[in-house]
Structures are given as C-alpha cells and as structure tokens.
C-alpha cells in the first residue's frame, strides 16, 4: 500500500469533520426563528463549511503529490512525550493547582527536551514556579487555580 503524506491526512480529517459539522447544522435545534428569513444562527457557518469542504478536498488532492515526510522513531516519541506531559500539566493545573503542577512540569520538560544540567534544572524548578506564582497571585492579584489539599496555594 502506498504511503500517504501528512497533508493528505490533514485534508482528509478536515473533510470528514467539515461534513459532520455541515450535517449537524441541520439539527432541529437550529430551526429557531422564522424571523431571521433563512439567515439564522447557522446561515454563516454553513457558507464557511461549504468553502471548507471544497478547500479540504483540494488540499487532500494536493497532498497526493507531496512526498510522505519521514519521521524518526525518536522524534515521534519525543513529540508524543512532550504532548503527553503538557496535556498532563494542563489537566494538573485544575486538578492539583497551578503551583504543584508547574513545579512538576518545569522539572520534567527540560529533561525531556534533552537538557541534562541537573543543577540548573533543580534551581529553576525551585525558583521559577514559586516566583511566577507569587508575582501573579500576590502582586498582580490574578487568581490562579489552587490545590484541593492546601489552603494558601
């Protein structure tokens, strides 16, 4: 089986999503007002989805002429791990609080990205999250998500 380029994949996914969203615009929930004379809430999105459908098809076809981009196993793992760690961090901000999750993130991410100076990582982990938390929470009075286990942070 011939390998397809990532552009084809992106075009194909966009095409499918667009088709689903276009179908969704015919949901009875959108038949809300006769007064809008046919230009109700999904009037403009339908036009956009029409354009998106055509353009996705064009991109999909264009992708057929692009050579598939080779990606090494190491690169794929690194990107996957970075995505996973960042996703966990964002989940952790609301689940465990900004400070705790940021300490963990700042410790793990540089190491993951190939940085091996342990002293620098520990120093930055110790100072940066606390500094940022203090500046925003105490000086700029921006309420950051707090931990469910501690009162002050």
């Amino acid at each position, binding site marked *: 089986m011939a390998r397809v380029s990532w*552009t084809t994949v992106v075009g194909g996914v*966009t095409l499918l999503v667009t088709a689903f969203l276009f179908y969704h615009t015919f949901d009875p929930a959108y038949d809300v007002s006769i007064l809008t*004379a046919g230009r109700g809430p999904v009037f*403009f999105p339908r036009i956009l989805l029409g354009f998106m459908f055509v353009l996705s098809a*064009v991109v999909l076809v264009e992708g057929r002429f692009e050579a598939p981009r080779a990606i090494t196993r190491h690169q794929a793992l690194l990107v996957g791990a970075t995505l996973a760690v960042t996703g966990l961090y964002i989940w952790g901000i609301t689940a465990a609080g900004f400070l705790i999750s940021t300490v963990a993130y700042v410790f793990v991410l540089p190491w993951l990205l*190939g*940085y091996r100076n342990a002293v620098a990582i520990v120093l930055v982990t110790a100072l940066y999250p606390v500094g940022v938390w203090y500046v925003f929470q105490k000086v700029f009075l921006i309420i950051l998500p707090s931990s469910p286990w501690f009162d002050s942070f």
Partner: protein
Amino acid sequence: MDTLALGLEHILTLPTLAAIVVGTVLGVVVGVLPGLGSVIGITMVLPFTFTMPQIPALALMLGIYCGSVYGGSISAIVINTPGTPQAAATALDGFPMAQRGDAGLAIGWATTASTIGGLFSVGVLVLAAPQLAAFSLNFTVIEYFALGVFALICIANVSRGAMAKGLLSGVIGLFLATVGVDQVTGDMRFTFDNFEMTAGISLIPAIVGLFALSEMFVRASESHVVKESIAYKVGIRLPRLTDWRGRLGILLKSCLIGSFVGALPGTGAATAAFISYSEAKRSSRNRDKLGTGEPDGIISAESANNAVTGSAMVPTLALGIPGDPVTAVMLGTFIVHGLTPGPRLFSEHLDLVYAIFFILVAVNVAMFIVGAIGAQAFTRVLRVPEPLLMTTVVVISLIGAYGVRGNPIDLITAFVAGIGGFLLRKNGFPLAPMVIGMVLSQMIENSLRQGLLITRGDFLAFFQRPISLTLFVLTFAILVWPLVRRLLGRGKGATLDEGNLE
C-alpha cells in the same frame, strides 16, 4: 490641541514611561531569541497587563512589538540565525560583517536604521490613520463585509505555493470564531450541549496554543537544541555621520517601502525587508558588495522591517482590521483593555490615539538607547538553554491564556490549538490566516447578515456600491492572479515571504 496635550499627558507618567522601557527591553530580548518573536512576546506579557491601567499596558505591548522587530537583527548579525523572520534579510550582510570582526558596527547600523525606520513609520501612522478613519465613516456594513473578505484573502494568499492551505486556514479561523453564542439571535452554535463551550473559543488562548505551544512541539520534533558553550561578546559601534553619505537614498527608499508594505494586509515586516533588500541590490551604489558585509544591506532590511511597525497599525487602529498576526494579537489585547479600534476610536477617544502615537515615538527612541547601552547584554541572552527557555515561555503563556477569563476551558483550548498548530505548521499550513480569520469572523458575519437585511436578501446589491465593488474586484484579482501566473508559466520562481518563514 487640548487632546494632543492630553495624549502627551497620558504618557508622561512614571508607570507609562517605565512600561515603555521595560516593554522595549523585553521586546529586544524576545526578538534576540530565535523562534519566539513578537506574537509570543505579546502573549507572554499579557497576564502582567491585566491589572495595569490602560495606557501603561498599551505601552508595554507596543514596546514588545517594536523591540522584538529590532531584536531579531542582533542574533542575525552575531550567530547568523535571525531571531525573528523579519530579520532574515539582515543576516545576509550583518553576519559577514561580524565574521570580519565588525559585529559591533553592524549592530550599530542595524540600531540606527531600525530607529529611523520606526520613527518614519510613526509619521506615516500620524498622517494616514486619521485620514483613513475619516474616510471609513462613509463605510456601511456592506463595505465592511467587502473589506473583511479582502483582508482575509490577502493574508491567505500570501502563502504562495500553498494557496489552498492558506485559504483553508483562514476559513477554519472564521468558523472557529462562530462557536458559542450567535450575536444576532442569541442561539448556541456548535457547543454540543457543553456549558463551557457557550463562551466560545477565545482568541488569546488560541494564539497561545497556535504560536507558543506549537513552537515547543515543533522544536521537540526537530530535536533542536542551542549549544550552551558558545561565548558571544559583542558591543556596539555607531556609524559616524560621514558614513551615512551616499546611503541616505537607500534609507529613505527602504522606509517608504516598509511603510507601504506594512499598511497592506497580509504582508508584514519580513516581506518588506526582502523587497527593500532587493531594491537595494538593484539601485545601491554599493550593490556589487551586497551579501559580503555591506552596510547598505543592513540599512535596507532594518529600516524597512521597522518601518512596518507603525504603518501596520494604520488599518488596525483606523478600521479595526489587522494586517498580520502581530497586529491581530495587538487588536485582541487592545480589546481586553477596553479599547476598540475603528473610526469611532478617533472620534470618541482621540486623546488615546495621540497617546499611542507618542508611545510609539518614545518606544523607538528607547529602542535606540536600549540597543546602544545593552547590545552586549542582549547577546548573552542567547546562552540561555533552549529547553529551559521554552518551558518558562510555555508556563507564562498559559497564564496569559487562563487569565483573560479565568476559565479552565481556555487552557484546554490552548492545548488543542497547540496540537492543531503543530500539525498545520509541520505540513506547510500558514497560521496567520487562521488568526486573522478568528479576529475578522464576527465583523464579516454581522456585516453580511445586516447587509442582506438592508438589501432585502439581494447579495448582488453588494456589488452596486463603488467602494465595495472596488474591494470585491481587488479580492477577485488577488485570488486569480497566482493561477494566471501559473498559466503564464511564471509562478515557479522562489518566493520568500512571512508566510513561508513562519
């Protein structure tokens, strides 16, 4: 005259002056570091501005904007790696000068040319923006619809060789902004009964994801790590007045090119710098030496890219229509701070407009002083290990995404936008049209629906008004021109523009 004095009074306060200096310094730092750039710089400082008064907040962001365009030239000269795409042309002559031991002088030329270019463009902004705002009072919703479509098509079309991808990116941006409450009927759209989604997809978290997070994912995919051990020791040596003899023509021409290109939607500072450099290569007295370390090359690139900063604000301030992602972010942050650009800004808050003019003048002066004093310190910033830098940038940017509304859904939006931005960038989709699409979506939709009400559903009536007809004809011409070029067999030449450089 009173409003002029009031505008000046706005900036002659300690917080505003401090914001100008801090913003410019941070901007230069962000510009020096390859891959960060103006958009990430502005989104990084956004959370700091939430509790600041309006004028100092604007001063901080304008400082970042102008400082980052200049800052890119320092790394272009010292390590042959432009800190921002705008400074790519500067490396062509800046780095050869550094190689022969004249890095300080090259930075001196870049600093002086950047300042002159920036100040020139403020003049253009002062002259052109009020005129454009006054002219736009003749606009009805139909003209605004035509203008919005024109701006979007211009930006999407910049991505030559990837026109369908650019257009698709723009339309996706338009669509994303329709999620949430319909402004006309109040109905929910594409929320799938999720309460958090009713607030819609906010611009700032999307930008944080598309630019800051995707930058980190891209770097992870390329395993690109800056070496720590390189020692950069560079000062600054300003050119003598006599050195300018024979170069003033190039300077003026580059300022004019930068100002003109900057005011056009979809172009940007990188395009201006390369057009200007090409012009210098054609008309400079020293054209034979260009590319070997000739100051004319630095002058043309740096004065042009900085001349974009003021003129790019012309359509942004006068019409509320941004010309590139940087001004789109600026527009978004202006709105966060209760300032809605457009013709009414000029009629109702002229003092604020004057304050912005004065801030831009002050920022450009500060840029010169900061560059002259701190060039050596800025090159040291390049020693910061990239993994540490990216981690700290992501944390601050995510606070910016969260802090606008304090809604955790914005963090998820940023993350999803980061993944989307990564996939799109890796496959040659430009991100600029998506951002501009998100900014323009509400205006285009509302003006289309209101226009159809006015014309009783007759879309052809949109073509009966001279201004809108002109804009539609221009839009059509821009759309078909690449096809015509391809048919004529001239579309295969290499093009270098901001879309590609992104």
